[in-house]
């Protein structure tokens, strides 16, 4: 299974924010869209960082004024990026190993989506579930 099979059912819209916006605005977007991280993109739509709940927390621990600061100050700049043809299994391994929870997906230089560790684990669970459901459907059938 590939990353594109996850993206296929998530819709094509990616929420982004500009680096000069405030953390307050970013947090409002996170809450509104019920997401844990937001991609930071420049005017031409290029990814320049990612701002996660954790980034906000980490900064807030040292700086009460975190909400007024520009996103660029607080975001993570070293972002691991995925491709639609990446294997879900390998991506899961990398996310757990390197302890990050959101993976922006870029295709031909264009940001096309973002997947979370939750998406990845759900997909793996559904795959296992699928094996079980196949067996169960067979058992129901044989009970005829």
């Amino acid at each position, binding site marked *: *299974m*590939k*990353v*594109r*099979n996850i993206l*296929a*059912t*998530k*819709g*094509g*819209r990616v929420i982004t924010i500009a680096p000069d916006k405030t953390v307050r605005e970013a947090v409002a977007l996170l809450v509104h869209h019920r997401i844990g991280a937001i991609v930071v993109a420049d005017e031409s739509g290029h990814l320049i960082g990612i701002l996660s709940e954790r980034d906000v927390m980490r900064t807030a621990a040292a700086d009460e004024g975190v909400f007024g600061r520009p996103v660029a100050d607080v975001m993570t700049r070293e972002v*691991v*990026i*995925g*491709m*639609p*043809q*990446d*294997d879900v*299994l*390998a*991506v899961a*391994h*990398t996310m*757990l*190993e390197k302890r990050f929870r959101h*993976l922006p997906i870029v295709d031909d230089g264009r940001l096309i989506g973002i997947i979370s560790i939750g998406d990845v684990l759900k997909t793996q669970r*559904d*795959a296992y*579930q*699928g*094996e*079980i*459901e*196949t*067996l*169960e*459907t*067979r058992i*129901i*059938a*044989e009970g*005829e």
Partner: protein
Amino acid sequence: MSPLGSAAQPLRVAIVGAGPAGFYAAERLFKESELVIEVDLYDRLPTPFGLVRNGVAPDHQKIKSVTAAFDRIAANPRFRFFGNVELGRDISVDDLKDHYHQILYSTGAQTDRPLGVPGDDLIGSHPATEFVAWYNGHPDYRDCEFDLSQERVAVVGVGNVAIDVARILCRTPDELLKTDIANYALEQLRESRVREVHILGRRGPAQAAFTAPEAKELGELADCDTIVLPEEAELDPLSQASLAGADRAELRKVEIIQELSRRQPTGKSKRLVLRFLVSPVELIGDENGRVRQMRLVRNVLYATDAGSLRPKATDHFETLDVGLVFRSIGYRGVPLPGVPFHDSWGVIPNAGGRVLDPATQEPLLGQYTAGWIKRGPTGVIGTNKPDAAETVENMLADARAGRVLAPTQATAAAAEALVGGRQAHVVTYADWRRLDALELSHGKEQGRPRVKFTRVDDMLAALAE
């Protein structure tokens, strides 16, 4: 007006595509106790079950038995089957909008992905999708021709479909006789001169898409030796590291491949060679445009940013003599007239199964999708159950919130009149059960599990008797 989902005004749902996703969706809809729901399940073929009938390998009869569970779903009095009715040919999306509150597309993946190398279109180079549909007796593919007088065959790709294709080519007539393979395919495979089948993986054993039981089966064929080159079975350091976090099934698959690589040929009459780390770069033809050779490049693996291992071509090439090529590199959905389509992925754009308007990325009222046409051509039969359940949860939430289509003729009778007016030979579930009984009894006469009808006309003629 009676509330929607009451006995007086049931929620009317059209499901287009009677494969596993369509059936699982119907099952989940019928589980809903608070709403009265009626389901009309459409299929372009007179026969239900999609790839369970026309994809699953005929030598895997046990898996095909899942259809009895689908029969149970069909026994619900609020279920109807409209077989031999195609969206786009007999009826349109607008027709459905006029007769149903909700429409679910579960049309699967009807075609293949091209390889994109020179010579891909030579005579003798075929998509595996066509061969699979042919040996399973799909009416649209029964007249395809494959030159089985060729001795050497290449199958490109190492998914479970590639394994199916190679296994069917390597079975003996006696083995095939125990299956429900189409009669004409049985006859042609009986005359087959195929001696050597090469399955070509572009990455290594740890990245092979097939699953462990299917790999194991390759080592158990009656009259075919399965060969893996020891140097290709060995894992490179990147693959080895990737297995650190792998589950048992993945480890088992690699073990089986390595076990195969330690075997010596035992002199059986056919050979199946499972290759890794090679990609076709060109198919070479003779003066008549028939494929004769395939040029392969050896690959090495590199890790992407996100950790998957991808193939990279080296400058080592080899040439394989082959007279027949099957590309088995994945299925692909086809667009339905009047329904949005994601062209590069071959799926209907959706969020959790709600079909999205490509312009606004907002859900389209009353339109949904499930199965391979929703997420792409991946997963086993049962994977479509959680997939369909996700879609149906969203359908039910929308129905409860009143977000449904506004059909002007939302009755079972009106839908039947519509369909009957467009297609003179609608096949009902009762009709299908009669065809099913006939196929089983024809099978019994020949000592086989089933002998399929492979022409729509033959099916209709049998029903008219």
